[in-house]
């Protein structure tokens, strides 16, 4: 996949004796929103873990802008420009919203620029401006998701990996989050998101991969996938087809 910001090249991942990924290859072009779809236990979240270096694949390569990051420790990968919006958000509950946002800029030393970015990002998330001094653990799920996304932006990343950003949110916040993802994307940040809700994800994504028991079962542009009868059956509530 030439010109891709993020490339996974025949990655094999294991949990102990259990293989999760089988020669998984995919690419995320710069500036696009790419989603990774799949049911439970298909290996979606594990894909996030190996990109962020929280888990090391047994073989294969992960490239960021052509540079291998496969064996780098997580902090180095973050410094290379990968930010994460983890599954179930994982804020620092006893820290204030402001502190959480600043944690997103932990690897940066340019204090003045960080402060400017904070102001800029708060324009994007006006709700958070009112809650800067509140402890993150006391926010609602939707607000926490906003903090998690804002926190990821604070590191000025090239790529943001989002693990199920709409999970557990009220419909109102789901729309809000999707809009924000598009806004972020328009600012030039590449987005790779894992979603169980294919319908939602494909509405905003440019390209999609469907992961099934550790292999790419299907891929294509978002409109293609939306039209694909298989996808409709399995993910878009056509008929309920039992997955393997």
């Amino acid at each position, binding site marked *: 996949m030439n010109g891709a910001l993020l490339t996974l090249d025949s990655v094999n991942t294991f949990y102990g004796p259990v293989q999760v990924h089988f020669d998984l290859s995919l690419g995320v072009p710069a500036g696009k929103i790419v989603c990774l779809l799949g049911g439970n236990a298909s290996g979606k979240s594990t894909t996030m873990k190996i990109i*962020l270096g929280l888990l090391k694949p047994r073989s294969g390569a992960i490239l960021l802008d052509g540079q291998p990051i496969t064996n780098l420790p997580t902090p180095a990968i973050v*410094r290379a420009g990968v930010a994460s919006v983890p599954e179930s958000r*994982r804020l620092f509950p006893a820290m204030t919203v402001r502190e959480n946002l600043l944690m997103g800029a932990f690897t940066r030393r340019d204090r003045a620029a960080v402060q400017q970015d904070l102001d800029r990002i708060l324009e994007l998330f006006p709700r958070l401006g009112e809650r800067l001094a509140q402890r993150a653990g006391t926010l609602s799920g939707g607000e926490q998701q906003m903090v998690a996304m804002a926190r990821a932006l604070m590191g000025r990343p090239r790529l943001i990996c989002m693990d199920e950003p709409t999970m557990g949110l009220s419909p109102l916040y789901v729309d809000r989050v999707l809009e924000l993802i598009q806004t972020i994307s328009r600012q030039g940040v590449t987005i790779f998101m894992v979603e169980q809700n294919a319908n939602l994800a494909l509405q905003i994504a440019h390209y999609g991969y469907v992961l099934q028991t550790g292999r790419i079962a299907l891929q294509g542009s978002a409109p293609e996938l939306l039209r694909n009868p298989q996808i409709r059956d399995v993910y878009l509530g056509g008929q309920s087809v039992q997955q393997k």
Partner: protein
Amino acid sequence: MTSWLDHTVNGLIIGNIYALIAVGLALIFGVSNLINFAHGSVYMIGAYTGWVCVAAIGTPLPLTLLGVVVGCAALGILIERFGLRPLQGAPRIAPLLATIGIGLVLEQIAQLIFSPDPRALPSQLPAWRLPLGSGSIGALDLFIAAVGVVSTAVLYGFLRFTHLGWAVRATAQDRDAALQMGIDVHRVNQVVFAIASALGGLSGVLVGMYFNNIFPAMGFQATLKGFVAELIGGVGSVPGAVAGSLLLGLIESYGVALLGTSYRNLFAFLILIAVLVWRPNGIFSSTRQVPPEPLTGTFIAPSKPVHVPRWAYAAATAIFLALPLIWRDSYIIQTLTNAWLYGMLALSLTLVAGTTGQMSLGHAGLLAIGGYASALLALDLGVPVPLALLLAGFITAALGTLLIFPAFRLRGHYVAIATLAIGEIVGLVILNWEGLTRGPIGVVGIPPLEFFGLPLYDTSALYWVSFTIMVLLALLQWRLTQYHLGRALRAIREDDVAARAFGISLNRYKGLAFAFSGFVAGLSGAITAHMYSYINHETFNTQISLLALTMIILGGMGNIFGAIVGAVALIGLPEMFRAVAEYRILLYGIVLLLLVRFRPQGLMGTV
């Protein structure tokens, strides 16, 4: 009665010392979810480093303190780097056991270098005292208070206002998320161990100067007091640790004023149990919910037990039965008798810690109950010895279960602390209840074991009696854990919530496990008491609990045969090489560390 002001000042001083320990424990628990049992040993090393500076080199006070801080920080970094970091991804129990091993090793090294005897650590502060109310306050008192306040303030500033301090706080709240912010959590761990150890060492040297007395075993009590203080304030909370420490210091000081010095520790441990039961999140928290526990789940290294054919068991039993007839070396026979008694203790512990997953660190308390029960029954009530033994078993089962019962709702780490404290409480009650136990003097002239009126003085006879009883108990335990009961206990170990969802009553089954365990350990303690003919409150100390733990890990947790193998290996082998007797406990510590690192499933495999 001396003035309350005096007791208050005294309580606050002691509280400040506890705070230096408890804050370190809280920091470490925060970032690595680990109760650091080696912390007291670092504190002790701090005291000895201070002694070396003062007595051997003759440094002035500021240099002494600097030496202690730098030395202990370095020690903390070493502990983190070589003791704990290699255990990443190991079962959650592994780092806890490693800190126990590190603690043992440090303590033994200090004993070997400085001898186990106490030595004086003179205060380097002027001896003037400031009259205050009806009492007075000394320069050292003020200095300790100042060190406490300044350290807390510096720590607060560090956590609140520095880049690294933020990283520490973030890591404590969510390690994985911190990693994803680009925080090098290894470095955070290292920094935290350095700070915690420096504070611990500082505390050690100040305590040493305060009492003008240091000794290698001083760390153990300090670790316990630190736990108590930390728990009062809520585990992992730094401000909580400070508040808990001051509170503990005051309560102890007032308690001692009312009841006397020997009650000091009893107070601390009773508070510990009360907090664990009623306020496991600390007294400042409103919930009674047991805190999320890092230790549950895959508790021990899963493995396949080594298969031993039945004829091998039979052959081994026959060989060991015949041994006194063949090998007439009474020293060997005595050593093996000792190993059988420890074997019983290991059987007892492996049922609770291995099969049921309740990490007990106070098992020696059960030996003490059994030993005292049998000795006092025989001496004071004239009960025939065999009957006294049996009764002692039942008394230990009942009393042991009753004592641990309040802690049944706890898990993992908290069980370890609770059992440790209960073990201490047993010893302290024995020490203080002079009317029943003869207090510090101990029980003298315990009648020897007898068999239908025939006293057993003969080494071989004692060997056979202890071996036979151990084998019978092992068979009984094997039979009991083979079927329904064993499955229920293992279910509790693997996931107590799931076990409960399948209708397993936790209280009932934990109760059964502790009762059987108490019976076995009680018998072992009782036989020991009659063999020694003298016991006191220190005969069965925490070192024995830790030794038993090492045995069952060596044998393979939950493995009945393994428990006996572990006992023979750790009691028998060092005795065979008498030259190393001095290094025995050091050896135990090293064995424990190596096992945790390289063979957590033990020799015979876990069951």
